[in-house]
């Protein structure tokens, strides 16, 4: 019997570690995360925050060695995918959860035609003949704005933006319930970025696929996402719907991020640096991971790690100081 969960995806206390020569990298460290059906969430954080690792953990594609999921649960559609067999995982990958990788230049197999690469996905998850799969592959090309006649061409005959369109076509070919897009436009030129984002927005309306959009770019999130999760040193520090978070960022780190945007009207969305550096993932601080950089931190912050609390409906923050402040307000 399948229990119908409110959430399409629910991650509980996920920990992912990499054994490297320089030590044990704690890439994801106690991550909690939920996603509703059809919801588009922006996962925002600096390089090294563990965004890609989280995505690969959901896909069950953490390279092992060196990586390992050491604890936690990932419920997809109410069932923990970590406990499934490799065979069952293969039926989820691609069919139910699809992923778009960061660099389109290297994401496609150079020796296979693009239509073959799309058709492969379709043949894997649908009962079709080879001919039907190729036809559907060409239809997918059309959908992402590439002439279907270009199906028999090879990846090197396409530009970066076109390749990313092919990658998107592969990801959406079997109409997945969840799409994870890992910085889908970072490697592209600015003008091409806009086109690819526009395409993703159209497709999101067309398919209503739940989406995790990983990015550095708060502007992109504002355009495409319903909600935002701020990730730092392997954890989510704050999550809320986009409007709430942009209007009322609570966590000192989130405030720092918004502060570091010089001027929104100048259309500069990239994150600037704030004082200090993210912690070394081989030696995470014992308490709140942001404490060493936080102007409000005290001993309590360095001793224990704060849990997520709901500061207003749908707005979750992991910070002792905010909890204190809200506690005081509630009492006085």
């Amino acid at each position, binding site marked *: 019997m399948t229990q119908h969960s409110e959430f399409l995806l629910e991650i509980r206390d996920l920990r992912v570690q990499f054994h490297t020569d320089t030590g044990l990298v704690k890439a994801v460290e106690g991550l909690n995360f939920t996603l509703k059906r059809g919801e588009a969430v922006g996962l925002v954080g600096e390089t090294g925050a563990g965004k890609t690792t989280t995505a690969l953990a959901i896909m069950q594609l953490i390279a092992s060695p060196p990586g390992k999921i050491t604890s936690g649960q990932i419920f997809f559609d109410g069932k923990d995918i970590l406990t499934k067999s490799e065979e069952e995982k293969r039926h989820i990958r691609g069919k139910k959860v699809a992923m778009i990788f960061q660099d389109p230049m*290297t*994401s496609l197999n150079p020796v296979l035609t693009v239509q073959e690469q799309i058709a492969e996905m379709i043949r894997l998850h649908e009962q079709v003949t080879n001919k039907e799969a190729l036809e559907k592959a060409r239809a997918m090309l059309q959908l992402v704005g590439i002439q279907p006649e270009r199906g028999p061409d090879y990846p090197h005959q396409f530009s970066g933006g076109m390749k990313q369109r092919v990658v998107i076509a592969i990801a959406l070919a079997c109409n997945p319930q969840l799409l994870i897009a890992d910085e889908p436009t970072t490697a592209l030129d600015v003008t091409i970025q806009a086109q690819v984002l526009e395409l993703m927005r159209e497709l999101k309306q067309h398919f209503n696929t739940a989406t995790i959009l990983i990015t550095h770019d708060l502007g992109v999130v504002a355009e495409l996402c319903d909600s935002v999760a701020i990730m730092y040193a392997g954890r989510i520090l704050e999550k809320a719907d986009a409007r709430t978070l942009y209007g009322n960022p609570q966590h000192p780190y989130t405030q720092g991020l918004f502060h570091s945007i010089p001027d929104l009207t100048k259309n500069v969305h990239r994150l600037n640096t704030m004082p200090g550096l993210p912690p070394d993932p081989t030696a995470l601080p014992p308490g709140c991971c942001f404490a060493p950089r936080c102007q409000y931190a005290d001993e309590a912050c360095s001793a224990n790690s704060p849990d997520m609390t709901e500061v207003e409906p749908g707005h979750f923050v992991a910070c002792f100081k905010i909890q204190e402040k809200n506690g005081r307000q509630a009492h006085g």
Partner: protein
Amino acid sequence: MIPVALGVTFILFSLLSVTPGDPARLALGEDASEESLNEFRREYGLDRSFLVRYGFFVYNAAVNQDIGRSYVTRRPVAGEMANTFPVTLNLAFGAITFATVLGMTFGIICAIKQYSIFDNVTMVIAMLGISTPIFYLGILFILWFSVRLRWLPSSGFDTLSQRILPWITLSAPSMSIITRMTRSSMLEVIRSDYIRTARAKGQKESVVILKHALQNALIPIVTIIGIQFGLLLGGSILTESVFSIPGVGRLAVEGIKSRDYPIVQGAVLYIAIAYVFINLFVDLLYAWIDPRLRTRYRY
């Protein structure tokens, strides 16, 4: 191909012309009279300068398809080649097939199971395979499998059981190199993004490795196999001597000993031509494997 044949034979002519030793004396024996020696030299053009001889050789080869006659047996070189070259080709083909099939299999397993016991042991054996001279390996195999265990014959090349030891011996260095090349090439490809894409589709691991990874890893492997095949043709000289196989290699060695220049020239010419064909074949294979090379010509 023609420039290659011309170049190779010219170099060989030059080398043989400065080699000490009198072909006539060696062909006719110690007791031959000065007269018959001169007769022999006139007949084979040995009294002419080396450039004239080379001119005649090229002319005869091009116009009459005649590459001379053996000083010793007095039979046409082409006929001798027809008898011995297929044997050498068989030896080289058998060895390269052996080396390719086993080398690639081992290489793929090593790449998938990097740093495992299998990987480490295979890499050590491959190191030995590369550094052990073929003739030494051949003698070792004969001592072990023919003399001690009495499993396989130590000479000849007519029956399958006679062929196994020479094939293995000749293939050992190439197999080692192909194993290492396959391993490193696969390791590089397996880490690439498109392999992750293939896995993200939900593709089976076996298909990911054999379809997506192998075809991309194949390009440097094919290069190495081509080079190795060429070297094998050369290496067959030693193998043929160790296992008493009547191939071109052994014929050439005897030809050198008896200063039978036409035979040596024929042998080298045939091997050079085979080499050119192998390279041509490898180039065609590239285009077949790698669409980036194919379309470069189309546009």
